[in-house]
């Protein structure tokens, strides 16, 4: 039961966050493959759609949890969903102390873009090892569409 992970539940007010250990418990309870015997330092690649809180990720396995936790705490209050749930994160790549995030926004006319990007930087800076260089790139291609929303987001929105 994803109680804490449901949109509108505790994690989405930005104050209550699921620790990585608890995330694994939740994922296990839902039957999701978060534990597959890999070492924490192994580099992994995962793709959007593998799990509900997932996005294309390349980097140390140990950092996937903190990165996910950081990104799902960046919320658009207008829709009460995290940017991960909306599907705005196109990819995160962590190599050699550098974290690159590629993301989009749903509207080019939105003035809140810079605030969201700053939130992403701030949350990632808290979650990643000190000294990691964080770069966020905003792209408009491929254009966002509703297929990129997470399953729980779609449930919340009545799909």
């Amino acid at each position, binding site marked *: 039961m994803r109680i804490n992970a449901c949109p509108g539940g505790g994690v989405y007010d930005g104050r209550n966050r699921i620790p990585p250990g608890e995330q694994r418990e939740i994922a296990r309870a839902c039957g999701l493959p978060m534990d597959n015997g890999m070492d924490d330092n192994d580099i992994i690649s995962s793709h959007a759609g593998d799990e509900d809180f997932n996005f294309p990720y390349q980097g140390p396995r140990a950092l996937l949890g903190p990165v996910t936790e950081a990104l799902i705490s960046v919320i658009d209050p*207008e829709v009460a969903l995290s940017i991960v749930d909306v599907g705005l994160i196109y990819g995160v790549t962590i190599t050699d102390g550098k974290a690159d995030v590629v993301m989009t926004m749903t509207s080019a006319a939105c003035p809140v873009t810079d605030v969201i990007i700053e939130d992403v930087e701030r949350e990632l800076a808290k979650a990643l090892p000190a000294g990691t260089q*964080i770069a966020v790139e905003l792209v408009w291609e491929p254009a966002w569409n509703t297929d990129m929303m997470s399953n729980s987001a779609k449930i919340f929105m009545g799909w």
Partner: protein
Amino acid sequence: MTQSSRRDAVHSQRGAGHTAPAPLAAATRALLPALVILALLAGIVGGLLRVGVIVPLTAHAAWPGQAAHFHAAIMLSGFLGTVIAVERAVALKLPASFLAPLLSGAGAFFLLLGYPAIGAWLGVAAAVLFTCVNIMLVQRQRAPHTVLLLVGAIAWVIGNLLFAIGRDSTATLPWWFAFAVLTIGAERLEMTRLMRRNRAAGPTLYATLAVLLGGAAASAVSFTWGGIVYGAALILLAVWLSMFDIARRTVRTHGLSRYMAVCLLSGYFWLAIAGLAWAATATGLPLRDAALHALGLGFIFSMIMGHALVILPAVARIRLRYSAWFYVPLAALHLSLMLRLGGGALDWGLRAAGAGLNALAILVFALTVAAAAAGWHVFQSRIDARAP
């Protein structure tokens, strides 16, 4: 935890090649909020004078009279137009796009100074520039909502043009309000994309807004029929928003999201009232004050109260900490509107009292925002103190 090197990397990716000279940017950042606050305060003073509230001012000042005479232009073009133009300039990230809000704010300033021709034509220039900004946004992302924002910009041009050539409020007000309503409608349409929407939703919105524009155009020719059509369109829009808006879902969340949804849904109620009152006024009933302020305060200002918490951080770099206190000015606005419209139908004194309380609600909202800004700093310093 120094992040300056990271920020440089990010800034170069984000705003590459689009930076204005530092002194110019600083001047704009200082001037724009001043113009917005000036327009809002002058708009409120002018409105209070119009409705018969005694405002303690010096007898020799000329600006209160100008503020009263140009109340609509100052509120809808000088204040609201400037705010919307700032939002779009921040979204487009082209320094030249900040000229539009500067011009519309300056336009209101010149109206107050007693130079109505300069003020009015500055407003036209502002709206034309704003239209160009919206054209560029459509080029960046061709979508129904960006096109609607562009149509709203054109409505602003028409309203300001009619004002500049000396047409009266029966001609200008429908276009100014259409600018606001189209802008809000476009943003709400964009939000509904996240829901699985009835296929009829998009087309019915376009049809409703087309009727609105038809009513605006007709109002210049036939006040009665134009007004009835316009009022009907406002009612239809309220129905559409109540049925399709994302606020229906987010009102069931909590905290800031719920507050924003409450602002939206209560605003839609006033939009429907405004439509009824607008159509009734067109047939001759004395409901003009009710129509204009149900629309301007009940609908538009509820939107402002709901969105300030996300927009101010974006355009003014002021971070705000949400708290339930924000419900206080919202409730004050709605209750005072009920007094103004309900009591005002019976007695002019009650209408004036309601208007005075409307102004107080806006003041309380401003204080709540200031407290929220302070609250954010307190909250942030506590977090930083706790961090390893």
